[in-house]
């Protein structure tokens, strides 16, 4: 059983990491979501024990570990909140840059840096000229 969980979690993590490296922002969000699911699965797997649901345990019956389930629930809720936040952030970025592509963002940043560089260079040359 442990092996199944380990395989499933690692496949999810790998898929998520692959999506995370994409240039499309929506895929990046999906990547984060899938990785968060891998973490939830690992949390559940951390306390695997056969038994009934630990709601009202009768004496001498085995119950499953409630703590790892509680942790998984908390992680799911946090994951949901974070996903919503990330989606809104992506929406705002898409509005600001008018493109859902990370390449566009990088290109804009590069153009901006080049502009600053040119400005500094001109300033420097003017100063040199003034010094002469």
């Amino acid at each position, binding site marked *: 059983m442990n092996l199944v969980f380990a395989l499933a979690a690692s496949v999810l993590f790998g898929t998520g990491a692959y999506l995370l490296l994409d240039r499309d922002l929506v895929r990046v969000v999906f990547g*984060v979501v899938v990785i968060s699911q891998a973490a939830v699965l690992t949390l559940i797997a951390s306390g695997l024990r056969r038994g009934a649901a630990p709601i009202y345990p009768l004496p001498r019956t085995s119950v499953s570990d409630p703590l790892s389930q509680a*942790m998984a629930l908390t992680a799911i809720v946090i994951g949901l909140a*974070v996903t919503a936040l990330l989606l809104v*952030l992506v929406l705002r970025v898409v509005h600001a840059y008018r493109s859902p592509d990370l390449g566009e963002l990088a290109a804009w940043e590069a153009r901006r840096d080049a502009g600053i560089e040119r400005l500094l260079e001109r300033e420097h040359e003017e100063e040199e000229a003034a010094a002469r």
Partner: protein
Amino acid sequence: MTALTLSLVIPWAAGLVLALLDGRRPLVGWLAVAILAANLGALAALAVAVLPDGSVVVTTGNWPAGVGITLRADALGVLFALLSSLALIAATLHEVLDGVRERTFPALVVLLAAGLTGVFLTGDLFNFYVFFELAMTAAYVLATYGSGRRELGGALVFTTVNLLGTFIFLFAVAGVYHVTGTLEMAGIARRMDDVDPNAAILLATGFFVAFSVKLGLFPFHFWLPTVYTAARPPVAAILSGGLANIGAYGLLRFGGELLPDELDLASGALIVIGAASIVYGGVLAVSRRSAGEMLAYSAIGQVGYVLVAIGVGGPVGFAAAILYTIVNALNKTLLFLTAQMRGAVVGAAFALGALSVAGVPPAGGFVGKLELFRAAANSPALIALFVLGSALSFVYAFQVYQYDFWRGERAGRRSTIPQQAVVAALALLVLALGVWPEPLLALSHDAAKLLAGDGSG
């Protein structure tokens, strides 16, 4: 005990109320400052209670010990909580005096304070994750402050990379629960000795990666310059002076207390990574012209010292790491706040911060560097590294000082007197730490002894 509860409840409850109010109104901004001050007061009261006799432990919800979530305040946690709270207050005050631009800003800072206080004062591993995520989520939204193209792009990078970091942390938490069967930090420290070394090393690596991403150490630093230069100065000050403390605290707490054997094993690797950080950050900072970019790369270099000190380990190494983190957080808060200011006091404050970064005597940074040298006294290679790093930081800090303050004035409007007063007060604090370092030295040595003592025994 009440102080511990209050320091968590005040910012949490107040943050929820503030979220409903329009933060652009000055009154709301001042309310946030007052709440942060109240939080700082509660933490100071807690510090007074904790520092003489060890620690305060509260089990939440009146559950029996071992069932409920434990909150624990000890010297290390209280020191970091106080430090972060101070950085947040300074940055918020600075922004409120300037005029808050977005309605969510005060609420987010207060919620961030709640998360940070919780991270430093919890004794439960999963609870640590929850507070960690609370602080990070507030910070993700704060990073968009200003809402320009740059801020949004930076916030996106910040959010994605740090989410990945927190998920790696969560994997390690699940692993720790699997091998030890408990989430209480004290219990984990006791049971870690019986754990299979391979599993323990894997978990230690997970925690190390998670906190290094947060700190921005060399191979995990790739997000940091983009974010710190894109964010507005008060937000950059909050991120580097308040939030990044989680990384240093996590390395100290998890390395020093929970996984001391693995820390010993990895000490060589930590020193190498720290050294790479120092050199990389220093060299790239020298090549930068604007104050913001220089500070971003300097942040990478400065945390390298902390990692080297942790790698050296033992009471002396930990004390140096704690002290250097404190001094560095104050330096960064001060310098990031001055990054776009203009005025008579600003130049002096920047110069003092620059002296502190370089570790020149009257400023607080000197004491931090001195402790580092003490920790590395047996190794000529480390001493040489620290001298090289200090020389680089002297060059990059004063290069920017020369550009921005000697060759004429910065562009933009002159900062108001109250804003300059905030920066001046921070600069005086940095100076005071250098002139009268005994209290802080004693505190960090106490905290380090506690950590090292817990680890070996």
